[in-house]
């Protein structure tokens, strides 16, 4: 636990020193949301649940759930995917 915390604190300090966003040197997932219609997810490890009302993804250190209707995965690559549809809520579970 301590090691992990130290590691993440260290990355924060480096990012702060170099004046760059934390996302560039850390392996946190990136979400780009366009309204409530489209989300581009970078850094997704696997798909846990896929349904037209729920898409649950393993994004490394947390599990992200997208709730909505008519949800589809427009494109799928080893590192990223695009979820389309009417998104009503997003949940992060660590």
């Amino acid at each position, binding site marked *: 636990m301590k090691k992990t915390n130290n590691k993440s604190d260290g990355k924060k300090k480096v990012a702060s020193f170099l004046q760059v966003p934390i996302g560039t040197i850390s392996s946190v997932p990136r979400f780009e949301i366009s309204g409530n219609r489209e989300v581009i997810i970078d850094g997704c490890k696997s*798909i846990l649940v*896929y349904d*037209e009302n729920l898409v649950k993804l393993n994004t490394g250190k947390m599990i992200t759930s997208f709730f909505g209707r008519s*949800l589809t995965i*427009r494109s*799928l*690559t080893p590192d990223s995917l695009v979820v389309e549809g009417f998104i009503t809520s997003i949940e992060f579970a660590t």
Partner: protein
Amino acid sequence: MLLLRLIRFIYGYVYFEGSGKHPEMFMNTVRRRGFNIWNISSMKGNIKGYITKNQYKLLRPVAYKSEVKISIKKKVGLPFLIHKYKYRWGMLAGSILFIMIIYVLSLYVWVVEVKGNNQIQKDTIIETAAEFGIRTGSLKSKLDLDILEQKLMEKIPDISWIAINMRGSIIVIELKERDNPPDVLKEDQKSNLISTTAGQITRLEVYSGKSEVSIGDVVEKGQMLVNGIVQDDLGGTTIKRSQGKVFAKTRRFLEESYPLVNEVQINSGETVTRKELQFFGIKLPINLAQVPAQECKLEIVKSKAYVLNSMLPVELYEEKFTPIVKQSQVLSAKEAEEKAQEKIKLREETELQNITVLDKTVSTQELDGKIKLSVSYLCEENIATEVPLQIS
């Protein structure tokens, strides 16, 4: 996005549907192996999506391991189209022939266009250009446009600038006509002003020279109105150029007659149309209609083909033969008079141009089976004309 769709169409793709126990495991495996898959939707355990044609074959083992059964619902793309028409040799031959014909036709000039002409007739320019090889059907590679520009300018002196451009199979001739300079007044030319017709002087505007007449004088044709030889108060003589305007009341007459019995042409049968297609100068008859044996009226109609405002080297040439019969038509005196008046009106527009008509008297007479219309005009006009002074 359009480019992406085009590329996918060229490579071919399939729409598949699948159902099974572990659809998420199937999708994760698909992702890890880097399959190009898109528009995936899932509903109650059923997966639907699109994948490229080549990768679908590799998808089956993945589906088998994930216990998902997949099947193709639709095939889209060029490879499938080619496979469908694989044994249609005619289509392939037709496509190749089409491409070859288009290529061969593109080596020739299709249309010659002219822009920028006002006074010079378009037909004159096209005929002159045809003499030098610029015509529909000429081989483009044999045309040296720079030399042709010079030749055209030499042949038509009224052109001050010309450019001949080739846009695909269309030759565009753009030109600017020469602006003729105005006549230079020769100040040293000595002259008198002479009357062009008889009349009574109403107004004098003498700019140079000595007036020999006054307002109210009656003059004959050829009489001197303004003298170029001017004597001053000290007895000295100056010879100058006479300039000015001399307005006088004059009388003009116009006469026209129209016969009471006319020979007119009446259509006596059905019109026979002979059609021909002209393509690159080659004439291809479309129908073989027989020309009527009797006397006919001929009407020629030429229609050019256009595609998106561009003219094509195809022209429909129609000859319409209408059989006619000549019959005598008897007109009433009033009708013949109206016809004569129309003729008088046409002559008034040309002969009485720039002349003010003060009064008009019309008289009608029937003579030798014709209606004769005589019109007398009282006009006011400039009767002065410049005549060079001969000094021996």
